[in-house]
């Protein structure tokens, strides 16, 4: 019996196990325990949540491997970590310490202004952000085994995540109605490989798991993204920048499971304390937006 590791099926497979779940940003082992106890299906280990990265400015890099390992030791659920766009050595380091998923993330400062990491080179799977179908398919062609919306991280404003989810899912719906001969020009227009465009048309969805991320702050935000059609939700600053992280985290987990049940959504939304202080994306200077990072 020959065993195979690092195949696309097992990379994509872990993301399939995360579906219907909430992946939470954590900066300490204590946070990670709170997230796990609240029912997170995975955690994202990083030194600063996006809201703090935004506030601090400067260059944001991969977190200290020692800090990530401490979080890996503290929980049994999968642990993800971020590398900079195009920084394949940060990715090699994260693979070497055994993280379960790498987020090649626009939240960190890009290390390459033209190329992303060739994710086929790795046994560890990658998740990447996307604002539209073309961007999602470019990342998948580079080897991403999971896609998420970019949203606008660290704002607590869900509008960009909604925009990106509607873009991807709406383009898939339009693609489903196209004639075969239209696919070639369409693939060229959106900058995606025609083989993947055809696959999406056949499946009626992305060929990998598709989560929401970037600005989710409440149970209602999470359920909104699920009703729009994503497979699960990342919550970054929204939990540990709020008044009662444990309670809010558990409420968002329940909201993702029961995303179509308004009575349960009302129940879990009660008395959650202060949400994170939001930043309105529509009045934010262009230069401060990070979703445009990525090519």
């Amino acid at each position, binding site marked *: 019996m020959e065993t195979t590791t690092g195949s696309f099926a*097992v990379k994509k497979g872990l993301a399939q196990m995360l579906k219907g779940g909430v992946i939470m940003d954590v900066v300490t082992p204590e946070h990670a325990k709170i997230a796990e106890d609240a029912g997170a299906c995975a955690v994202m280990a990083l030194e600063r949540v996006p809201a703090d990265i935004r506030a601090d400015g400067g260059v944001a890099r991969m977190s200290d491997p020692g800090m990530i390992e401490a979080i890996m030791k503290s929980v049994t659920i999968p642990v993800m970590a971020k590398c900079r766009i195009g920084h394949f050595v940060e990715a090699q380091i994260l693979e070497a310490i055994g993280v379960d998923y790498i987020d090649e993330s626009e939240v960190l400062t890009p290390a390459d202004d033209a190329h992303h990491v060739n994710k086929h080179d790795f046994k560890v799977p990658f998740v990447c952000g996307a604002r539209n179908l073309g961007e999602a398919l470019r990342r998948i062609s580079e080897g991403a085994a999971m896609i998420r919306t970019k949203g606008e991280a660290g704002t607590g404003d869900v509008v960009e995540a909604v925009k990106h989810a509607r873009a991807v899912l709406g383009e898939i719906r339009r693609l489903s109605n196209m004639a075969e001969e239209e696919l070639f020009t369409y693939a060229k227009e959106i900058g995606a490989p025609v083989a993947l465009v055809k696959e999406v048309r056949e499946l009626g969805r992305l060929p990998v798991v598709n989560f929401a991320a970037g600005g989710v702050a409440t149970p209602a935000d999470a359920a909104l993204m699920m009703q729009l059609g994503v497979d699960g939700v990342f919550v970054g600053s929204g939990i540990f920048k709020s008044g009662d992280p444990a309670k809010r985290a558990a409420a968002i987990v329940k909201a993702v499971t029961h995303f179509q049940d308004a009575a349960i959504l009302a129940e879990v939304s009660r008395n959650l304390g202060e949400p994170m202080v939001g930043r309105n994306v529509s009045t934010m200077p262009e230069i401060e937006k990070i979703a445009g990072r990525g090519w």
Partner: protein
Amino acid sequence: MKIGVLALQGDFAEHIVTLKRLGVETAEVRLPRQLDDLDGLILPGGESTTIAKLAIAFGLMEPLRIFAREKAIWGTCAGAILLSKDAKRDQPLLGLMDITVERNAFGRQVDSFEVDLDIPELKAATATQAPYHAVFIRAPLIESVSGSARSLSQLADGRIVAALQGKLLATSFHPELTPDDRFHEYFLSLAR
């Protein structure tokens, strides 16, 4: 026949796709009343800690135990952990099968793997000969079986990756991730 899939978290949609391909009526189960008219239930892959917390929060643990008295239940990966009596750590379990499991027994995600398994009982039940291609994702191992539970399949080194006890079925791997429907057919024969 109507088969439910516990839809609290995990890859329940993949199980439903396979069941529909086999012409079975399906239902997503998130609340106890949704168990009422089912002939069998699948506990999908996912995170066992997440699924158990949600099952407790929405009052499903006892109804699931009662369901198992007469009906078939199949747990894949996280679902197998939930069915077990012992997961060697402090976490809530249904405790329905006399099996001890070890979570993440093969290591982290980079150690997740695919392998062909020889499963005589599956081949006999489906009148087929081909080996069964199995996908293991951060998989648990069935460390031991006791009582009326018995092993259905082992790796080359003898470690147990599938077990059966009456109408209860546990697999470390994920038949819902592959196009081979034989394990689902086998489960339907238990539920019938």
